[in-house]
Structures are given as structure tokens and as C-alpha cells.
């Protein structure tokens, strides 16, 4: 017997905008003529039960957040199939003032099914193609979670930066969910900005099976070492990786008496993580109407007494 994922793909369907032609064709797949249930495909209507996210139509300003929200609620492993040319590229609507473009402008897309409207046969084929991606993701997920004890923490190189940036964008999605706001800096950082940071900061990476699953960076200015942009892949969160990264990073600044980090006011998990590692809140800063920064510091009395500090 093969993977159960291949035999039981549950989908959720969202029609973003455009003419609804593809929307109707997706529903046509469920009718007796095409009957996708014979392949085990069920239209769940609930993201938390689904494996495959079918999006039709180009994404506009108003439903950008809806698409992201549904995507975030799908449990891993998950794949996204963009159905129809509008979902693929925005097509004739791409220059409209309110259109973001294809679905891949807002969430990562795994399979594209072009067509206007995409025929039910093509849609079913797209879903079947996506099963291979789903299976790959499942294998990565299980092989990585089986080898968490073999992880290596080391300094990152310039060549790791693209992977670190990708990881950062995956890891900070949980924050985006909290604030319903995609303008958080880590999510919008460009490769150029990251390269600039790399010149002035120390980057650490956590490797498992040749893949980077965690990262942190830090730099020293005056008497204080600043830690920032800690990111752990969602598959590996809650396994003590965060604390380990903080400790490793601190050890790169051996003669430092004061460490400082900042996070956002609603990120209780981050604040808890830092407090567990000896950090204390010392100031907050209102940066906009809806956003407040929380600054935490850790004072080390003498060299080598970090443990007593807690």
C-alpha cells in the first residue's frame, strides 16, 4: 500500500475573484460526470481538514488576507494548486489597480493549472500532480522530525542566505497570523537587505539532514550584544531549539555583560521563550497605532555566571 495521502486528498476550494468560470469547473469535478470522490477526493469546506488548497481567480486587495488566512489554517503537509490562468498569473486582470496578480504573489503555489476556464479534466490532473508534491513534503517532514537529535548548530555562510531568508518567511507566518498584518519586517526583507546584514552580523544556522531548520543573528554594539530574527521551522517548534539557539548565540559574545532583544507585544510565545532564558522586559515602544515593540534585556554579572543569573 502506498502513502495514504495519495488515496485520500481532501481539498478546500476558494474563489478569489475574476469571472467564476474556474470556480464552476471545480464544482463540476464533484458532480456525477467527473465524480472525484472515486479518487478519495473530498471537498471539505474546512481548511483544518484539508490537504490541498485550490484557488481560482486572481487575488485582489480585499481577499489577499482571506487567502493567506485559509493557507495558514491548513495543517502540514499541505499543497496549493492555482487553477485557471487568472490564479496563475493574473491574466487580463493583472494590470487592474486592485489586483495583486496570481496566487503566488500572496502564498507559495506548488502546481499551476492554466486554462480559461480550466477544464475539469485538467483540474483533476492538477490535483493528482499535487499529490506527488504532497508526498515529498510528507517525507521531508517525517525524515526531519526523526533526526532532530542529529542537528548541527554552526555559523552560516553567504551561500546559506537564500535558504535562511526562505526559512525566515515561513517561520514568521505565525506572527503574521497573530497581527493579521503582512508588513512585519522579517516577512518583507529582501535578499539585498539580508546580504547587507550579513556583513555586520553573526549568523547562526541549525542543520538537519542538510537543510536549515533554524537561524538567529546577532551583533555587538558598545557594551551590548543584540540578538535578532530568531526563526525555527514550524515542524520543529516547541522542541527546545529556540533556547538552544539563544544560548549558542550568546556564547559568540563571550565578554558581553548585557544582551538585548526585541519582539512584538502580542507574541507571548517569544516573550516566554526569552524570559525562560533569563531576559527581562525593560521598555516598550509604541511604533504605530496597532504595533508595540517589547524590549528585553539580560544582564550578566560576571563572566561564566550566566547560569546563576536565571
Amino acid at each position: 500500500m502506498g502513502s495514504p495521502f495519495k488515496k485520500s486528498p481532501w481539498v478546500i476550494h476558494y474563489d478569489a475573484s475574476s469571472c467564476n468560470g474556474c470556480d464552476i469547473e471545480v464544482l463540476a469535478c464533484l458532480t456525477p460526470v467527473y465524480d472525484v470522490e472515486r479518487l478519495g477526493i473530498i471537498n471539505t469546506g474546512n481548511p483544518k481538514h484539508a490537504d490541498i488548497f485550490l484557488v481560482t481567480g486572481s487575488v485582489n486587495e480585499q481577499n489577499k488576507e482571506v487567502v493567506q488566512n485559509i493557507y495558514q489554517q491548513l495543517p502540514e503537509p499541505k499543497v496549493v494548486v492555482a487553477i485557471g490562468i487568472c490564479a496563475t498569473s493574473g491574466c487580463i486582470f493583472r494590470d487592474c489597480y486592485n489586483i495583486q496578480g496570481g496566487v503566488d504573489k500572496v502564498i507559495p503555489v506548488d502546481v499551476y493549472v492554466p486554462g480559461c476556464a480550466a477544464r475539469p479534466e485538467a483540474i483533476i490532473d492538477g490535483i493528482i500532480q499535487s499529490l506527488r508534491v504532497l508526498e515529498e513534503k510528507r517525507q521531508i517532514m517525517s525524515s526531519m522530525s526523526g533526526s532532530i537529535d542529529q542537528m548541527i548548530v554552526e555559523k552560516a555562510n553567504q551561500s546559506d542566505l537564500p535558504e535562511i531568508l526562505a526559512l525566515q518567511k515561513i517561520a514568521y507566518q505565525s506572527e503574521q497570523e497573530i497581527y493579521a498584518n503582512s508588513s512585519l519586517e522579517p516577512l518583507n526583507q529582501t535578499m539585498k537587505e539580508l546580504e547587507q546584514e550579513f556583513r555586520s552580523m553573526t549568523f547562526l544556522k541549525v542543520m538537519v539532514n542538510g537543510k536549515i531548520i533554524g537561524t538567529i543573528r546577532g551583533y555587538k554594539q558598545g557594551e551590548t550584544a543584540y540578538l535578532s530574527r530568531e526563526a525555527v521551522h514550524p515542524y520543529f517548534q516547541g522542541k527546545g531549539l529556540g533556547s538552544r539557539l539563544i544560548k549558542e548565540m550568546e556564547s559568540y559574545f563571550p565578554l558581553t555583560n548585557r544582551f538585548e532583544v526585541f519582539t512584538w507585544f502580542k507574541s507571548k510565545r517569544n516573550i516566554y521563550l526569552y524570559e525562560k532564558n533569563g531576559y527581562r522586559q525593560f521598555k516598550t515602544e509604541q511604533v504605530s497605532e496597532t504595533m508595540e515593540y517589547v524590549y528585553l534585556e539580560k544582564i550578566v554579572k560576571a563572566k561564566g555566571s550566566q547560569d546563576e543569573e536565571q
Partner: protein
Amino acid sequence: MLDLPGGHVRGGFLMKTILIIMVYLIFAPLLGGLLAGIDRWISARMQARFGPPIWQPFYDVLKLRQKENIVVRRSQNFYIFFFLLFIIFTGGLFFAGYDLLLVIFALTLAGIFFVLGAYKASSPYSFLGAERELLQMMAYEPMVILVAIGMYMVTGSFYIADINSFPHPLLRYLPGLFLGFVFILVIKFRKSPFDLSMSHHAHQELVRGIITEFSGKTLAWIEIAHWYENVFLLGIVYLFCASQPLAGCLLALAVYFMVILVDNVFARLKWQTMLESSWAAAAVLGLGNIIVLHFLR
């Protein structure tokens, strides 16, 4: 599974009871899953579709076990674990031949854990599902208790082992109770027109109602609990004709088929209609049967 010789258990053969419970633990979910697969296949044929393979429910559950488990609060899964545990306990008591009243109480307790789990998830969809589940429990509970009373009146015992070894088919004395029980089975099997708290079919107005906030392994538990529950409920149907085991099994299968047919024929009704009609069924068919029985004896 349905014709377990519960009649000999009460003699104190502990080994035999343990054996029956082991057989139940292993085969009830297999049978339940198979019945669910057959249900989907028959439903598809009724709708002029090809339908999924018979083993589809097992593929679904195997897949769900490998999915990420997203929760609103961790404790919501804890309640669902107890829901599964008490459903298994209910069936275990039943097939081991113990007290029918205790079985009914265990079933109700299991249902309450399910509702609490959905409340814990604090989402409007699961709240509404949980409230409707409570309404469903209110709707079917009187009838279930009347069945126990009716069986006691005929056989003189609440013990399932005794009811099972009663020499005549109970259907002869309890036709009203039987019909009433089949009526509320539509609620228990979560079928249209009474699939208010959660529907097997997507895109109904409540999304998935009570199970909206459950994913991954927890959703698989709910599915397995449903299999155990279905086998247990068909076991009660079997009791109505336990003196002829083959006829009893056929009766259970016929009832299952009828519930599937009803599911495909009816659209969902309002909860008021469900409550009124199932209480009316309990009062007329259930209570009426008991009153007649009382005067005839």
C-alpha cells in the same frame, strides 16, 4: 460481531468476557470502517456516481494520523480522547453483556465529552455544532431510555446477556419501540435530515459543525469513535431479533441500508422539527408500545 454469545458470559467466565472484549476492540473498528465505506459506496451509487473504494475510510484515517494537529487549545484534544475512550467503553460493556442502563449512561457521558471538546475550541462554528449536538442528545435520549425499559419489561432483566438469550424475538413485543429507535438512529448515525451538528457532506451551512476545529490525529479519533459507536448501535438493533442470530444480523443491515436511503432522500430539517418529531416518536411509538405492553401482560 453482532451475534456474540453474550448469554454465556454472565456465568462468570471472566476469560470469555476478556476474549469477547478483545475481539470487540479489534474487529468493531474494522467492521465500523467497512460499514462506513459501504455507506459511501451505496450513497455514491444512489447519486449515479462511481464512488470511492470500500476501504476509503481507512485511508482517510491513516492519512489524518500523519497530519499536523492544529489546536486552538491543547485541552480540546484531551476531551476528544475521553470521548473515544467512553465510546469504546460503552461498546465493550454492551458486547460483554452487562447492564443496558450502564451502557446508556456511558454513551451519554461520551457524548458530553464530545460536546465539551467542541466548546473548548471556542470557535463560533464549533460552538453552534456543540449546541446542536446537545439538542440532538435531548432529542434521542428519551427514546433510548424507553428502549431499555421496554426490553426490561419483556425479558425481566436489564442485562444484555439475558436480553440476548430471551427465546423469542423482541420485535414481536416491541414493534413501536423498534420503529422509534430506528427513527432516532438517523440522528445517532449523523444522517440527513438530522445531521445538524455535523454533516458527512461538505458545504452545508455549518461547514463541519462540532468537528470544525479538530484536525489530524484528533479528527481520526473522532472518526474511529464513530465506527465503534455505529457497531454498538447496530448491536442494539440486533437485540430486537437476537433469538434468531441470522435474522438479527439481516435486520441490522437492513436498518443500516434504510438509514442510508433516508440520508440520500431527505434534506436537512430545522432543529425544532427534529426535537418535536423525535419526541413525538418517543411518545407515540415508544411510550405507546410500553403502555400496550403493560395492559396486555
